[in-house]
């Protein structure tokens, strides 16, 4: 693979996907945790309705993002990274993609198992993925929760790694994903 085929920076589209989905995930954690603390009632219903609409938005964006990623090469990892670092970076990114699908899908299945169909901002209703099943609901809720902690840990690792690259390694790993900046080769 000749080196010049790698773009120097993430494209505007890739940056758009990254930051919009990142903002949605922060929103999802906020709504999910707030809903968890509420007693059953209208406010919980409203909070979870928003959580589901945003979650289905993430799922739709994840499909588009994956397609985009499969036909557009991202910039290359900076030189000087060890094999272990490269492997860790790759594994983190793959796991992010897995969770971008698994989180909304388990949420959607949870709603289906509870017989609470998922609406997208009141505009249309998604079909139920599975039938009413209380045991499946409990299992899916536990999975959705565990995966949310995994996602939280992964995001923390991701942010720390980006900061480490920027301030410690002084490379362009962070800036090439930032809009309105220029990536100068810092290494």
């Amino acid at each position, binding site marked *: 693979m000749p080196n010049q085929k790698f773009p120097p920076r993430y494209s505007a589209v890739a940056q758009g996907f990254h930051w919009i989905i990142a903002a949605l995930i922060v929103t999802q954690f906020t709504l999910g945790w707030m809903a968890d603390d509420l007693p*059953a*009632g*209208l*406010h919980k*219903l*409203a909070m*979870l*309705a928003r959580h*589901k609409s945003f979650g289905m938005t993430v799922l739709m964006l994840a499909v588009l993002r994956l397609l985009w990623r499969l036909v557009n090469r991202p910039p290359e990892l900076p030189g000087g990274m060890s094999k272990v670092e490269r492997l860790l970076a790759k594994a983190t990114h793959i796991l992010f993609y897995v969770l971008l699908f698994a989180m909304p899908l388990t949420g959607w299945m949870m709603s289906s198992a*509870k*017989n*609470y*169909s*998922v*609406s*997208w*901002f*009141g*505009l249309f*209703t998604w079909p139920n993925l599975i039938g*009413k099943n*209380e045991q499946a609901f409990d299992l899916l809720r536990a999975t959705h929760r565990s995966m949310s902690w995994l996602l939280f840990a992964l995001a923390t690792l991701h942010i720390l790694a980006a900061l480490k690259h920027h301030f410690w390694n002084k490379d362009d790993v962070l800036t090439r994903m930032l809009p309105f900046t220029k990536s100068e080769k810092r290494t």
Partner: protein
Amino acid sequence: MNKTIVAAAGALFISAAAVAADTAASYTADPQQSRLEFTGVQAGAEFKGVFHKFTASVEFAPDALAASHIDVQIDMNSVDSMDKDRDTTIRGKDIFDVAHMPTAHYVTKTITKTAAGFNAIGSLTLHGVTKDVPIDFQFNPGAGGAKLSGSAKLNRLDFGVGQGDWKSTEWVGDAVKISFSLVLKPKS
């Protein structure tokens, strides 16, 4: 002698026909086979619920509508929306308040023929509030009884179903669709 018999038979036939013209057959709904369902909108998505316990007493004949009526008593506690958490909320004091208003009652006042079947105006007492609700239905006589099926629409807030937070229609719609299918057996 022969003439008397013919006359008597004729008189009997005429009076039988006259009786048939202004009396309606009496039925009760078979609880096992009959179904009473509602569809509401929650957070933008439809959900369905049924009432497992209700009794229906029906006097009906298509050619004796003035003498026909439908009377349904519904046990509100028997509501089932296929989720026990939602059922608990629905039974609670802010929605059905089954502790104070355990039954709903529908009784028709007038029934008229329509192009598609029949239309009835009846009074529905739900959550302690009585209001007229029209229903459209079809009546199909069959072996050993009849089937009466139809639908209605109502606004839950007309009946005060939804107090406090639940008065808002932002997350739970006001309009509720009702559909029913009664399997009628002759009253013994």
